[in-house]
């Protein structure tokens, strides 16, 4: 079974690193990390991820804006996006759901939680 491609977007380099390590350790995922939200659409086109893990608060573009950009992109529009954020207010969550994210994970989330949510998103994509 081919590895699923996961794009993780966060402005924290350490977070990107450890998430990549944890996810790739399972051997199920090919992980690309991106610390700049400006490059998301570009990377989506080159990497063609199956799921995107997206932070909410980032320099340049926030999670919601990134979602909106992806929604307007013919590639990005079909990719399930999971928000992984330190923000866990209902309104933040609502904002995210409104722009079409499939799930919302509050930090700090463990490896298991991430994998479960990714799997769930992948299953949605295949339906």
């Amino acid at each position, binding site marked *: 079974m081919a590895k699923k491609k996961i794009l993780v977007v966060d402005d*924290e380099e*350490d*977070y990107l690193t*450890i*998430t990549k*390590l*944890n996810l790739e*350790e399972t051997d199920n995922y090919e992980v690309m990390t991106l610390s700049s939200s400006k490059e998301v659409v570009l990377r989506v086109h080159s990497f063609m991820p199956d799921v995107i893990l997206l932070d909410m*608060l980032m320099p340049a573009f926030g999670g919601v804006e990134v979602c909106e950009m992806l929604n307007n992109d013919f590639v990005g529009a079909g990719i399930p996006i999971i928000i*992984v954020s*330190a*923000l*866990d*207010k*209902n309104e933040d969550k609502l904002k995210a759901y409104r722009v079409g994210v499939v799930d919302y994970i*509050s*930090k*700090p*989330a*463990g*490896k*298991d939680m*991430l994998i479960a949510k990714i799997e769930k998103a992948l299953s949605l994509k295949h339906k």
Partner: protein
Amino acid sequence: MWNKISVKIIIIVSVILLLSMFLTGAHFIRSERVMLFDDVHAKAVMLNKNIENFLFTLVTLGVLDVENILQDAMKDLNKDDVYEVRIVHAPGLAESFLDKQFKEKYRSLLGSLPQNEIEQKVISGQTIEERIFLNINGKSQPFIRYGSPIRADKSCLFCHDVKVGKPMGAFFSLISLEKAYQIIKKRTTENILLFGLIFLFILVTLYFSLRKIVLRPLIKISDAVKHIIERQDLFRQVQVTSADEIGQLGTVFNKMVTDLKKSRDELQEWAKTLEKKVYDRTKDLAEAKSYTEDIIGSMIDTLVVADSSGKIKMVNSALVQLLDYSPDELIGKPITSLFDEATAKFFNETAIKEITEKLVIRNLEATYKSKSGDKIAISFSVSLMSEIHQGSRDIIIVSKDIREIKHLLEMEKQKTVELKEAYGKLQSLQDALIQAEKFNAIGRLASGVAHEVKNPLGIIKQSAEYLKGKLLPSEKNASEALRMIRDNIDRADNIIRVLLDFSRSSKLEKNPEDLNALLENSLMLIKHIPTLEKIKIIRELGKDLPKVLVDKGKIEQVFINLLINAVHAMPGGGDLFVRTYQLRLDKFNDVMVISGENNFEPGENVVVAEIEDTGVGISQVNLMKIFEPFFTTKDPGSGTGLGLSISKNIMTMHKGSLEIKSQESKGTKVIVTFKITDGGR
């Protein structure tokens, strides 16, 4: 007439004169009479002597010319006067030897024996003289009878055997007093006439003298007095003609009149001045009276004057207008009839006493009763008049209609109450705001911090998980260390989550909820607490409670907090009471509930949830700080110190209240009160 002084004087003088003349006349007549009687007596003595001599002569000469002798003897006698001469001889002696002629003439002269006791007395030697009345020719006439004894002489011894000096007989002569009486009568008449004339003369003289000397001047003075009195003419003077007492009287009188005139003039002058003064004074008084009346009439405040017995004497127009009476209806009535019952009672029992003691009462509030029965709030002052008038020390009552003031005061009071309430509300609102602001600040801080902390926490968590996968099963200590890292990340995350609740608690999703159900849910959620096994849960849940409009999640959070606290307070077990009931707040209910930083009102219906434990309790010092954020008595790591402050905040947001009553080592009772006025039933 009898009042006239002249008549009085004349009467007195007449009486004196008459009396003295009568006495003088009587004395004259009496002297005359004695003189006349003495004459008669002398005549009788002479006659007897003559007869005696005759007899002796007769004896001596031997009865020769008896007739002549007797005539001689009788010469000196007024024969007309001698009515009878009689000789009486002692018995046993010779009879008389007078001739017949003699005998006829002097028929009883001779030869008779003593015929009565008087004659017997004379014969025995006594001389008698008596006055008798004899009826002669049918007419009673006065006589003197004189009897003298005839004593024996030596010559008698020749013919008679008698002793010398012894009475041999007696001689009695009866001499008429008719003549003497006539003389006396004549003299008396003459005297009376004379005295009458004298009397008249004296009277007339006296009268005219009096008239001239006394009466006329007196009459002049009297007339002058009369004239002065009748005509008020003080110019009249009496003419003084003499220097005697009456003249002096006239002078004095004239002076007196002059003085009187002067006095009268002065008096008249004074009277004029006085009249003017009286007029001026009356005018002033009238003006003062009118001024005073105007003042009283124009007074805005009411005035009542009552006498010392409390009867109304005077009222002013302000009172009449205020009470709608006419003055006549009030005058004479007891003053208490103006008041309502309470004031009247006060006035009778307290005020009168106070007035008598202090003389004045100031600004007492009372109530007047108008004619129509309306009650009028007044403020009155009572004083006693400083002086007694007509036997009464009057009471003055001045009162002011204070209805408007009272109304204003009432409004002011109400406003003050409202203001106080508003202030209270404002203060509680301010407290709530401060609290809210505090929570907001914490919330903002928390959400800011949360993001910054959560990110590293996420990295740490994933790192720990990664490392765990790399550890060999033999490396147990390292594995334990990784577990501790993970657990503490969760703990930190939990704290951050609670902190974040602050920033979220301002938004409520309220729905009508059943408190009992919420409590049951909350109890369900705490059942995993290990120590709960040792605790007996006693449910005293009210039936048919009205639903309350609350945010279910938040209220469950409150209940869970309280239940966990209760369970933690009873580590060794105990009773946990869970109660709900409906309550109507009144002033006897907990004042804190009503007056605290909430919107409860007395009389409001509320639903109460109580969670009570029999645990360790809370000290008074800790009770004060119990709602402060981050205050906890639990071991470090087992409590955030935010539970109660968040619960309190949630209840405040619900406009409810949360109170804690506790006694150390006895237990704690938490009373959570919910409004139902805006909640559905």
